[in-house]
């Protein structure tokens, strides 16, 4: 497996929860998420954020409301749901255990 594929798989499994974590910190617009996540390398391109948001909506992890903007059409304002918070907490548990195991094995390998 090439390294690009590895990275793509890691992103695929985690990006939804990273987006969820940002939204949980403070409700926001998609544009703000793009800014926040753009620097992390978690998104292959800005556009791939939208399918993630679409899945989060479909799963009921976030809810949106339309907010009028001064310039242009109304925009979606994203807010985490109770269900989303629960899913995020559960993932966090998995993630901590998972990364601990991986880190342990990788550092053992190096030593």
């Amino acid at each position, binding site marked *: 497996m090439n390294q690009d594929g590895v990275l793509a798989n890691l992103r695929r499994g985690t990006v939804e929860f990273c987006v969820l974590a940002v939204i949980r910190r403070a409700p926001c617009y*998609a*544009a703000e998420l*793009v800014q926040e996540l753009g620097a992390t390398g978690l998104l*292959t*391109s*800005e*556009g*791939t954020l*939208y*399918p*993630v*948001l*679409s899945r989060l909506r*479909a799963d009921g992890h976030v809810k949106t409301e339309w907010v009028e*903007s001064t*310039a*242009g*059409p109304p*925009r*979606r304002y994203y807010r985490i749901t109770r269900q989303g918070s629960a899913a995020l907490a559960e993932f966090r548990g998995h993630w901590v255990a998972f990364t601990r195991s991986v880190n342990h094995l990788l550092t053992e390998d190096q030593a």
Partner: protein
Amino acid sequence: MTDLTNAQVDAYLRQLDYALSSLPWEQRRELFADISQHIDSEIGATPGRSDDVEAVLARLGDPREIALAAGAAPIAAPQRSRLHEVAAIVSLAIGAFIVPRIGWFIGLALLWTSRRFTRADKVIGTVLVPFGYGALLLAAFSVGSSSSSETDCTGPLGSPSSGAHQNVEVCHTITTGGSSTLASLLRLIILLVGPTYTTIRLIRRTLRSTD
């Protein structure tokens, strides 16, 4: 928004819509709305110049990538028909026989108006097969028979199916070709290799072109 930005954005959204086409209608509509809105607000933030639009679309990424992230079935980039290139190759090779006199010139026009062939292809196509495979066949025939009679060139070569240029070219071949068998053979090889190389080159370009 200028016409140019409009055209760029429209093209992008068309590609996106096409890439999303395997998704359920509701999901497709939502994603399309989200992304067109993203473009609107990004361009609204930096109004005017078209290089800004390019930057916005570049950051947004390949529509196919977005569609894949949304779980759409992967689709190949739409390919333009290769009819133009096929017609060019056929016309260059045997056009003189299909449409007397102007067939080769039709091929030449098709060759130079193609967007798939490179400039080198076009120059080679023009120079290396000056009169297509027709000339080759006639030349091969006349090289074989030239030793017996040089008046051959007014016979089969003067037929209406071949252009005036062909007569000149092939007659030239005959008058100088009778001198030595080796020279005739050499000329035949050159006449064979040139058009074959050109035709194969053009066919490969047509098949390999990915746009």
